[in-house]
């Protein structure tokens, strides 16, 4: 009995090891064209930037096979705190740096906007600042108040600590205490999924994330604000009212690998990646 047990345990340990070893890349068989860049780069921060950072990481890794880039979310505030405590090399922050954060260096990589989304079937196509304020503070509670169908509005708000929430509150001059939500969510994607499932829900998300989902067939639509359509084009032209910068931040002097990655991120090579995520690349 004991021998069988030991054998089974040994087998259970071997199986995953075998799978891993068989799929691991063999670093010594890499071609000589890669420069001596190697090591692990850790990037944490805003969940808005994370998908973009992930795509950039993949492309970077394919040019430098000895490099591993790990992207983790945690919010812009986490990005700042981690970089300050040297827990990560690069932080992702989806807003401008505040006055108290001048000990950090911001490397802008793209621009983004924040707008509201509703289900595709919702007849409403645009809203004014006041209407949005009224909805989120609970004064309007039915879609008929906005020219829509007779259904209660399901207001979706973001949980505290997210910079998208801060951008939203900052623009509309509201405090989180004044908001009367029906559902509170964590990440952008969650808001998108909820709105796609519920024809009477409304939420605010980053334009980049929203447009990306829309292009991939998710049944949502982005609302125009004060008559200006919410598109990455308008963010580019700086005509859309609620915009924000997407930054990679570092603390002190970044190491060689971080510098290389930031340089790569700001180069035109990443423009197609940025556009693919529906953010707006910075043209010189």
């Amino acid at each position, binding site marked *: 009995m004991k021998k069988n047990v030991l054998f089974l345990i040994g087998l259970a340990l071997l199986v995953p090891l075998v799978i891993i070893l068989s799929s691991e890349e063999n670093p010594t068989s890499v071609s000589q064209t890669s420069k001596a860049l190697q090591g692990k780069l850790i990037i944490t921060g805003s969940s808005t930037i994370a998908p973009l950072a992930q795509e950039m990481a993949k492309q970077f890794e394919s040019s430098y096979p000895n490099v591993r880039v790990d992207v983790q979310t945690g*919010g812009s*505030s986490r990005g700042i705190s981690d970089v300050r405590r040297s827990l990560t090399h690069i932080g992702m922050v989806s807003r401008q740096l505040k006055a108290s954060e001048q000990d950090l260096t911001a490397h802008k990589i793209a621009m983004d906007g924040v707008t509201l989304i509703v289900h595709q079937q919702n007849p409403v196509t645009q809203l004014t600042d006041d209407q949005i304020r009224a909805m989120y503070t609970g004064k309007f509670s039915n879609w008929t108040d906005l020219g829509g169908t007779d259904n209660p509005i399901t207001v979706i708000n973001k*949980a*505290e*600590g997210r910079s998208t929430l801060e951008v939203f509150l900052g623009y509309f001059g509201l405090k989180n205490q004044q908001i009367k939500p029906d559902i509170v969510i964590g990440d952008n994607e969650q808001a998108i999924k909820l709105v796609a*499932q519920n024809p009477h829900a409304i939420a605010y998300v980053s334009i980049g994330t929203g447009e990306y989902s829309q292009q991939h067939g998710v049944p949502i639509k982005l609302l125009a604000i004060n008559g200006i359509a919410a598109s990455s084009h308008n963010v580019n032209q700086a005509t859309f009212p609620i915009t924000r910068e997407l930054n990679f931040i570092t603390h002190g002097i970044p190491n060689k690998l971080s510098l290389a990655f930031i340089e790569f991120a700001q180069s035109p090579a990443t423009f197609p990646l940025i556009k693919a995520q529906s953010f707006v690349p910075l043209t010189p």
Partner: protein
Amino acid sequence: MSLLHRDLLLHWVLRIFALLASLIVGLIAIFLIVESFPVLNHVGLLAFFSDASWHPTEQLFNLLPMLWASLMVVVGALILSIPLSLLSALFCEFYAPTRLAVIYRRIIELLAGIPSVIYGFWGLVVLVPIIASIEAPGTSLLAGILVLSFMILPTLTLFAITAFHNISQQQIANSMALGISKAGFICHVILPLARPALLAGTVLQTGRAIGETMALLMVCGNVVQTPSHLFEPMRTLTSNIALEMAYAMDDHRSALFVSGFILLLIVIGLVILSNLLVKEPNDTHTV
């Protein structure tokens, strides 16, 4: 090494292992206290019960709405699942034909093992739209109660089945000799005798229900408010930690550790309660 030395060594090694295992809880408590300290220092414990609301980025830390929400969802789940689990156990033990009882028990055992995430997923995809069609938004106290009660039902039932089985073995001969009817047997013999074990089991499941995070995070809507009716969304203390922890800094993060510590205290209280209930001697009833 002599036999005596080897045994002494073994004794010490085992002592160390046991110590390690028992230190974990102590370590957890220490960490929770240490991490809670900053905000307790800045804001004080009273703020957690008297502030205007829970808006940590605006330095408001009232935990009461979430404590009430946790309480309500657990009590609701208990109200639903205790009768169902008792009756299920009675069915399995006394009313079902043997083959059916075995199959039913297997079903319950499988249900007991299903991860909370799957219950939450199913609740989100199936239950919430149904509730939403009755009243928006669908993610609500009701959804939480339903999902939670389905989660604690199987384990409560298994507990009850074991308790009923043991007592039934002891008492069946006497009761049949006295000619008691089945309902009488159940109501006046089995249930009273099983009460201490059932209570202890219920208290343990309550502890588990209070600790439930993922399923409730998925179906309750996560709005911080004391729910005033079943269809209102709410947020439990546990879901709060899961939702905000990743993005919380400084005082906010510290406040989450305070709520974690409160949960720990509640659980310790429940464990003590359950132990006290089990100690109640059964010997006064045995023949």
